[in-house]
């Protein structure tokens, strides 16, 4: 099955700084609950892992991430990821277009991604996919915003370093560990809440 996620996030960061943050693949990945980069092959190729809880099952994917296109002028990135779970029963792929735009208050990060899953995850987890990805995304954005704040605080150090090229960022404080390790109970509750809210919405609509 395939789900399309189209979200944007306003950041209190200059577009250049936001673009720099986006290009720090390892840093951005760390904001996604359960995800991490395990190996940097070169500037555009990485290996990583993601663990996701879908209902009673935990699925750990490992795979390759490739930056297929990087347009510094437009501040846009095209990332392709493919992976399979450790047990070999599921596959997943990600096709993400992300762009940073200037806004009055700073910048806006927009991302449109197609996530495709096959195998057991699709068979058993299809019902939960949308809810789980929504919850994951909320956490991801919260973490990203936190990272942006940290960067903003460190701005004087790096503001002048903004160039067309990807700049090296100072080590931003990592997001709190409790936030990157997805709490199973919290996730379950979020999913149930989401499900109930949906039910309620539907009842009202009819």
């Amino acid at each position, binding site marked *: 099955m*395939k789900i399309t996620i189209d979200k944007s996030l306003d950041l209190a960061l200059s577009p250049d700084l936001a673009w720099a943050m986006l290009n720090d693949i390892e840093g951005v990945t760390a904001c996604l609950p359960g995800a991490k980069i395990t190996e940097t092959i070169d500037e555009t190729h990485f290996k990583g892992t993601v663990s996701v809880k879908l209902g009673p099952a935990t699925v750990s994917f490992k795979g390759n991430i490739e930056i297929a296109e990087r347009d510094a002028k437009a501040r846009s990135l095209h990332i392709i990821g493919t992976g399979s779970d450790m047990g070999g*029963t599921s596959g997943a792929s990600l096709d993400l277009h992300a762009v940073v735009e200037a806004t009055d208050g700073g910048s806006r990060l927009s991302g449109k991604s197609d996530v*495709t899953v096959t195998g057991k995850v699709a068979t058993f987890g299809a019902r939960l996919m949308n809810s789980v990805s929504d919850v994951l995304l909320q956490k991801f954005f919260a973490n990203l915003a936190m990272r942006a704040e940290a960067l903003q605080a460190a701005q004087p150090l790096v503001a002048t370093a903004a160039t067309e090229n990807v700049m090296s960022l100072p080590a931003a404080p990592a997001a709190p560990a409790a936030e990157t390790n997805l709490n199973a109970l919290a996730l379950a509750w979020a999913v149930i809440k989401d499900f109930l809210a949906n039910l309620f919405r539907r009842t009202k609509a009819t």
Partner: protein
Amino acid sequence: MNEIARDPAADLGRLERLEGIGCARKRREDPRFIQGRGTYVDDIHLPGMLFGIMIRSPYAHARIKSIDTSRAKAHPGVHAVLTAEDLKPFKLHWMPTLAGDVQAVLADGKVSFQNQEVAFVVAEDRYIAADAAEMVEVEYEELPVVVDPFKAMLPDAPVIRDDLAGKDVGAHGARRHHNHIFNWQIGDRDRTDRAFDAAAVTVSQDMLYPRVHPCPLETCGCVASYDAVRGDLTVWITSQAPHVVRTVVGLLSSIPESKIRIISPDIGGGFGNKVGVYPGYVTAIAASIVLGRPVKWIESRNENLTTTAFARDYWMTGELAADTDGRIKALRVKVLADHGAFDACADPTKWPAGMFHVCTGSYDIANAHVSVDGVYTNKFPGGVSYRCSFRVTEAVYLIERMIDVLAQKLGIDKAEIRLRNFIPKDKFPYHSALGLDYDSGDYTPALQKVMKAVDYDALRAEQAAKRADPDCPTLMGIGITTFTEIVGAGPSKSCDILGIGMFDSCEIRVHPDGSAIARMGTISQGQGHQTTYAQIIATEAGIPASVIQVEEGDTSTAPYGLGTYGSRSTPVAGAAVARASHKIREKARKIAAHLLEVSPDDMEFDLDQFRVKGDPARAKSMKEIAWAAYNNVPEGMEMGLEAVDYYDPPNFTFPFGAYLAVVDVLKATGEIKVRRFYALDDCGTRINPMIIEGQIHGGLTEGFAVAFGQELPYDEQGNVLGGTLMDYFLPTAVETPHWETDFTVTPSPHHPIGAKGVAESPHVGSIPCFSNAVIDAFAHLGVTHTGMPHNAYRTWQQLLALNIAG
């Protein structure tokens, strides 16, 4: 049959003792099943037995870049990890299918459907095997997926079968596209087209018979045990056709059939799912030969539902031409048949769409033409008959739906239009426009009996009143089907599997004490053969059923037979039983004559004895005759009392029925309640009325499941979305409606005891009956068809579209 007129009252005691044809004898199988004493394949435990687990592809279409088995092989307790490379030296990485295609045993370079077999792990027990299976690392490169058979036939569609590159002729003739399997046509196209051109009225309807699965309670599995010292192979297997499996295993392994023993133990339901040979069987056998130890392989539920033999997946377009009175002039049918990634259909070799050409149904249709195209898609292989004869369910669904579409167009009552088009009784034997010879039928009294039983006119009046009331919370629908089945495959002139004619067989040995053992080439999966075959012998050879042991399923003891599916056991093997019984009886006549010192012509058979004509006091019971067969036979006669019969039927048998369903659709929720279901079946001579009723209840329940809930949908990535019992509907007593059954008796003229098949009629006949009822509920709103399954969600969508929900 018996030669003398009987006095029923005087014979009652002896008849009761015999428990012959017509007796509602209790099933001999049930005591062991209800006490948990059955022996299914997973109950087989052999010393030193290992367990195998299949590693399957999560992708529907992908190239295999690498398989790393090293970590799994190093895991303690693992004995082997087989891949296609390991099977190649034995030429076991591909195997023939029943449809003349080949299928990968373990993926050879690429996978073409989700859950395709990629590697096979063999370990001490199933837990170690499951752990090790997760250690096998397979690297895939995804390829574009095609799950829609129409898209599969587009010029630039992905190539599903690289191995068929350049082959423009398949097992069933020319292929016109890389994903095309065959085109099969029957009937007179020109005449049919002309009849359509000249017709006053024509109707056309597209319909999908969705992909469903027989879903037997017991999944498929086997235990393979190769004895390297003796050089023989024994395989316990959940097979509906053990002798066919033996022949296939012999072909694949080069072991002579005499050294292969296939045993089908108790089977927990088959319904067509257990006819073929699956990769797991081949890998378990290969592993046992290589390792010299018994290897067990048992499917999980998910594996069963997503890899072994589905049914249907027929995209059909039906057209009828008629006059304004609703008299049908012609039928035209086009089918796109989705066979999945390998053509593993179970059909007679000559007929790649099985007996779909029974689609003229119970109706006298002078012109007909059918064209079926088989297509490859990235879905799992199969195309078996789920509780029906080969593709008969699809055929009956098509014609029974089309008759309703025509009736709606013309505003003719749906019972009346059937009565106008029935093949009249005096036209039997009837040669259909599509070349079948219907042996017998008497349709009008059957439908009239049903209409009377349910008070059809009152039901229609109630429906009219409800339609007139806008505040009525329900829509009422009445569905009718008057179907004809074609079962008992089949005459070897038209039916074979792998070149072997579809005869069947029976061997009877009468012991000195007058008891007997009968062995058959068929195999019961719930049909009650141990009960009913004994009843045939009881009536035809005069041996009480209670002392007859019926054995099936062991190829080393049973005579060769083609197995049990397509309602063929009674029409084919049942005939062999009757004929073998007659051979016993004729030998017994000579022995009796010898004992009484009269001419055999002066003896007459009387239930359980031979007596002298005109002198009934002088008689020899079958028990006395059996004893004499071992010590005092006429000069020149062989000792013993046994017979073998191999029966090649002259024709199919054509059971029929008239079904009526009443449903209420709740406008508020889209839920559908089956208020009433009346099923009248005519299966000719009725051997055991109680077993018939049980079989009809089972078939109706499975029909209810298909009509209202079963389907295996796919998403665009080729994920099977119905592969668990969370999604795949298996009705229990809670959901199942109440069934009312009835019968008429129109014996088959060519069958030795006049019997036809019965267990599949209720499935074949009920599914279109449910659909017709549901669609009839919407008929006054202009609806001519809605797809199955008729679940609440889909019906709710229909209500919304018509703006009548709530």
